[in-house]
């Protein structure tokens, strides 16, 4: 095991641990703040795997925007500084089953799908902006454009749904 493996494992443990804290903490705002740690650890893992651009985009979008949006939502509705013991919905067993099944499925699928896919990290830097841009806009340009149409559709429908009906 190299030093890189150790760092990767530690970051993984940090991400998983803070992820568990997100759903077990009794304080609503703390859940959002633990999510910052989870996303940060994930970005660290991307960095270790030399995917620089993905790591920084992860921080910019998820920590900088999504978590701030979550915090905004929580604070706008209610932000108790103490413990909120009424947060449990009684779905805990179902949630555990769902989580475990998803985890097993994802690990198996990713294992089968990518177990033979190796990237040589010594020859070239695969995660740089230039490399990702080249691959994205040469080989994968059609899926990329389809995704952007999907996002545009989601954006437009959100605006349509949020507008008050003229009566």
């Amino acid at each position, binding site marked *: 095991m190299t030093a890189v493996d150790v760092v990767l494992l530690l970051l993984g443990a940090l991400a998983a641990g803070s992820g568990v804290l997100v759903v077990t903490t009794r304080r609503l705002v703390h859940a959002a*703040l633990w999510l910052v740690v989870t996303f940060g650890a994930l970005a660290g893992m991307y960095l270790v795997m030399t995917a620089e651009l993905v790591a920084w985009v992860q921080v910019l979008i998820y920590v900088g925007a999504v978590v701030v949006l979550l915090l905004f939502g929580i604070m706008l509705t209610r932000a108790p500084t103490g413990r909120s013991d009424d947060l449990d919905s009684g779905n805990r067993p179902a949630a555990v089953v769902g989580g475990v099944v998803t985890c097993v499925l994802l690990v198996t699928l990713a294992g089968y799908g990518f177990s033979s896919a190796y990237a040589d990290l010594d020859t070239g830097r695969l995660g740089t902006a230039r490399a990702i841009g080249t691959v994205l806009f040469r080989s994968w340009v059609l899926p990329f454009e389809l995704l952007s149409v999907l996002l545009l559709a989601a954006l437009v429908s959100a605006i349509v749904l949020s507008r008050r009906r003229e009566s």
Partner: protein
Amino acid sequence: MNVAVEVAVRVVLVFAAFLLFPLVVGYMEHKAMAHMQGRLGPMYAGGFHGWAQLVADGVKFAQKEDIVPADADRTVFKLAPWIALLPYLLVLVVVPVGPGGLVGSDVDAGLFYALAVMSVGVVGAVMAGYASANKFALLGGIRVAAQLMAYELPLVLSAVSAAMAAGTLSLGGIVGAWRPWWLAWQLLALVVFLVAGVAELRRPPFDMPVADSEIIFGPYTEYTGLRFALFLLAEYAGIVVVSALATVLFLGGWKGPVLDAQLGWLWTCVKVLFVAFVVIWLRVSFPRLREDQLQRFAWMGLVPLALAQLLLTAIVKVAIS
């Protein structure tokens, strides 16, 4: 030179800049604002034109009582000033000061790194607003979050325009590709970047989150002593970082009229301080925007302008290549 020694020297230099520049900008604000308002500003501390005023302020802050409100979320309350301050230190690491590797660390996707880390600082202010257990602080925190969401988009879009023009995300690479005529080409992006940057720092005229006549001091209402000083330091470090990024992206960084190779660091410093002066100038010149004006200005004004600039950048880029 030994690698470890070199890293240590770079870290020390960046840290020294991080401690020195915010003080210079803070002093400049005292003096520039005073003279614009027909006053003298600090004149006594340190002897010469009150140069040590901010040092004296620091000593005063250190002596104050350290108060945490009884109902506060203690851990988050104590953590918040550090979360607000540290990102700006981390951004300074990638800002190129001169040609030939005169930079803390040359990150390949430096622009994205800088924008990503900067956006984390806002979480500190939101945490402060929540943890204080004070309704004014909470209102301030909500305003901080709303403001960040509105101004992050034009900030990133205008920065992307510079990256597109240069064809690289590396901050050093952008300065290297910069030409004087870009000042005209990227003028709109420069304006949008500066305005959105000032808004992201919650500086007047975009200081709705700390509007003293409405919500006392917003998220920082309950803070005293050193923790309050850390928030103030974060504000001035933020000015330095936004000015440095504007310099690097739009004003040609180390490129000056003569002797770029030898005097590059000097040109960078002069430009950064000039942009910081403009930020202070804005504070003295404009009244505070109302919350709805603030949101309207971002979504209806800056975002379309930034998109128009992106289009212009793309057209010119294709035309000249």
